[in-house]
């Protein structure tokens, strides 16, 4: 880029255009500069100006000529074809090409800043001790390690060192606004880095932050937003007068409708509207849409908060130290309340108000209800509900991340070694409770919550069915791939089953990414032993383990088959494999039928209350069907019925294939 000083003629033109400068000598321009579109501008300090040759199209379709109008610029670099109009103070910023700033009071960099990178936020535990340093490459997995593994000082120290080194690269005395970004009608921006194509309109105040916007996935900041000390990753939208204070907002997140959040991290595809977040770790797909919903001092993922959901950590003596964990896939019903500390098992539903502290992590897919002021647990109830099925289907299709780089690594499978491991725990625990609980006893008490004795056996049966489905899902997937190539049982055993089966170790949900405990230990050792030096290397290592999922999952499943059938894989006969396929078919179809039964409730007499209100029963039915259509025509129902047909077909084909094995 060739730079030169303004010539005398250009200075004359600028003066004629009501422009002023402390010193015209400190203004540099690029070759091709034309002063024609610079009017009523005051320059101070070192200013570099590009060319202003093109017109800029605004969001409302208006076209305006690039240039600088009615503004004050100090120590700035203005790229080609920027449009700056009515900016009271534009100070210490570098603008890439085609940036638009119009009707803004102040856009300024003061002192040395890292633009929100490195700010430590107190997630999960308000009292501190789990501080999370935020930065623009942060992923849910890195955050999980930083927040949860505080007991591993070597790991934390090393992670902190890696992050500090990265944060130092962000240190600057000038802000930057990326190519094509637009800032319109905004009050005050201080020490904010804007990536490419960021769009800020009608915001009130943005301070100490980064909008990690990209051309593929712009960040959008809208009406009335006040944000201080923040990182917002690509593809996210914050608007609707949201109040953001010391927050990390990951990719594809939506925050708006007067949402207020402090000391909180929201990872991929989370949504926060209307309510309030305080010290939360919102893992991927944490969603809260309704007024009066407070999420506080908790960890969530794949979570949906009902209206008025509330938790409290106030029964403390030494400060707000209590925290809550809702494992992946949990939900809270309207006006549910939980007293922290508590821990809710995966895919569980909490309704009612709970004033005792409990831990249901050994009982996944449960209903946690309140009866006469007592907390009740019904294990396995949420295995065969419409909600679980629908949620599982919708999450992958609702991934809003458009950027090529996706920071959060997410495994979506409903049944996987993590959830099925928990189902196994629950199954074994229920079996032991069945054996040791006398029939005269109405309830058993387990880790702070009551379970009806009568349900112990039934719930264990449902867990058992889920295990059959998981094994079948994994086996069928691989048999389907093998059936055209492998024609003998020996070949099948050799090719299908892994030779190096690991022990059936525990799996961890690293906030969306599933990893075996052994692999996680390896990763932690690699970090602790200084084998990983940079954020980039850390991200690559995480991706390596993320990609191992399918392989490790199958190894885990094979070991489960061995344990369950009390047989070595090499001893698996065709008959045994057929039995596994049959069990899968039976259990899956039973589950599907139970889900269909659950769906049918939405078409029953109770659901028709409020329909056809001015007519007789015929009018009720007619009105209901006009609005809700019939059970038979419901797309969810049709899809599930089709799935059942497909399962039967696959099962039949595979049984034939297995029978024909030589």
């Amino acid at each position, binding site marked *: 880029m060739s730079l030169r000083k303004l010539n005398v003629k250009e200075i004359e033109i600028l003066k004629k255009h009501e422009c002023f400068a402390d010193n015209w000598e400190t203004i540099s321009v690029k070759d091709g500069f034309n002063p024609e579109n610079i009017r009523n501008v005051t320059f101070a300090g070192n200013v570099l100006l590009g060319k202003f040759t093109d017109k800029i199209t605004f969001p409302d379709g208006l076209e305006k000529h690039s240039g600088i109008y009615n503004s004050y610029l100090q120590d700035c670099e203005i790229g080609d074809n920027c449009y700056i109009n009515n900016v009271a103070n534009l100070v210490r910023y570098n603008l890439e090409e085609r940036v638009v700033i119009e009707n803004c009071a102040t856009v300024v960099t003061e002192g040395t800043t890292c633009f929100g990178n490195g700010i430590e936020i107190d997630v999960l535990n308000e009292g501190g001790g789990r501080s999370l340093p935020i930065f623009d490459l942060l992923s849910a997995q890195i955050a999980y390690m930083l927040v949860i593994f505080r007991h591993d000082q070597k790991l934390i120290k090393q992670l902190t060192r890696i992050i500090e080194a990265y944060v130092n690269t962000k240190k600057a005395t000038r802000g930057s606004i990326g190519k094509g970004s637009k800032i319109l009608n905004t009050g005050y921006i201080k020490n904010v880095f804007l990536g490419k194509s960021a769009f800020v309109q009608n915001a009130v105040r943005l301070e100490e932050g980064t909008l990690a916007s990209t051309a593929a996935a712009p960040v959008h900041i809208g009406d009335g937003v006040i944000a201080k000390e923040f990182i917002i990753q690509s593809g996210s939208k914050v608007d609707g007068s949201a109040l953001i204070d010391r927050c990390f907002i990951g990719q594809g997140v939506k925050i708006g409708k007067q949402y207020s959040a402090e000391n909180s991290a929201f990872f991929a595809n989370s949504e926060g509207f209307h309510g309030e977040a305080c010290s939360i770790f919102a893992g991927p797909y944490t969603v809260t849409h309704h007024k009066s919903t407070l999420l506080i001092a908790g960890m969530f993922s794949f979570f949906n908060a009902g209206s008025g959901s509330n938790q409290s950590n106030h029964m403390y003596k030494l400060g707000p130290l209590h925290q809550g964990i809702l494992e992946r896939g949990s939900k809270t019903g309207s006006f549910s309340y939980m007293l922290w500390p508590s821990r809710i098992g995966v895919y569980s539903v909490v309704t009612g108000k709970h004033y005792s502290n409990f831990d249901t992590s050994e009982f996944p897919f449960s209903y946690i209800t309140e009866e006469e002021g007592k907390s009740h647990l019904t294990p396995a109830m949420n295995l065969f509900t419409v909600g679980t099925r629908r949620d599982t289907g919708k999450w992958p299709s609702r991934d809003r991340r458009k950027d090529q780089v996706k920071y959060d690594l997410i495994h979506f499978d409903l049944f996987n070694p993590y959830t099925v491991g928990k189902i196994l725990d629950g199954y074994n625990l229920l079996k032991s409770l069945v054996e040791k609980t006398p029939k005269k006893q109405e309830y058993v008490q387990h880790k702070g919550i009551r379970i009806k004795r*009568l349900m112990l*056996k039934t719930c264990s049966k449902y867990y058992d069915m889920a295990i059959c489905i998981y094994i079948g899902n994994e086996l069928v997937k691989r048999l389907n791939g093998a059936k055209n190539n492998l024609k003998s049982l020996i070949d099948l055993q050799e090719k299908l089953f892994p030779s190096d089966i690991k022990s059936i170790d525990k799996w961890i949900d690293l906030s969306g990414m599933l990893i075996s405990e052994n692999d996680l230990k390896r990763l932690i050792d690699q970090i602790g032993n200084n084998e990983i030096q940079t954020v980039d290397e850390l991200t690559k290592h995480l991706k390596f383990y993320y990609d191992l999922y399918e392989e490790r999952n199958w190894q885990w499943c094979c070991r489960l088959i061995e344990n369950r059938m009390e047989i070595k894989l090499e001893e698996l006969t065709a008959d045994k494999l057929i039995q596994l396929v049959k069990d899968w078919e039976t259990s899956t179809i039973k589950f599907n039928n139970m889900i269909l039964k659950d769906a049918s409730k939405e078409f029953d007499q109770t659901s028709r209350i409020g329909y056809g209100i001015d007519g007789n029963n015929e009018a009720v039915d007619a009105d209901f069907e006009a609005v809700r259509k019939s059970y038979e025509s419901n797309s969810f129902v049709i899809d599930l019925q089709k799935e059942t047909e497909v399962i039967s077909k696959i099962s039949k084909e595979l049984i034939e294939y297995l029978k024909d094995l030589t």
Partner: protein
Amino acid sequence: MERSEVESRVNKVVAKVLKIEESDVSKDANFIFDLGADSMQSMELVAGFEEEFNIEMDEDKALNVQTVSDAVDFIVGSFK
């Protein structure tokens, strides 16, 4: 087992699980619409019948048990 005995014991289970008076349990009463059973109580009823009569109710078949008389029919049938 006589049908009348099954009916009597079914009524007891229903009353206990749904926390209602036995006298409120009529033969044709629908567990959900008439007796107010929710989804969890429906499962509890199945568990209650299984324990009371020492039987296993297949999940698919249990889905069709909607009324008190359905339950009685199912249980009587399971003894045949």
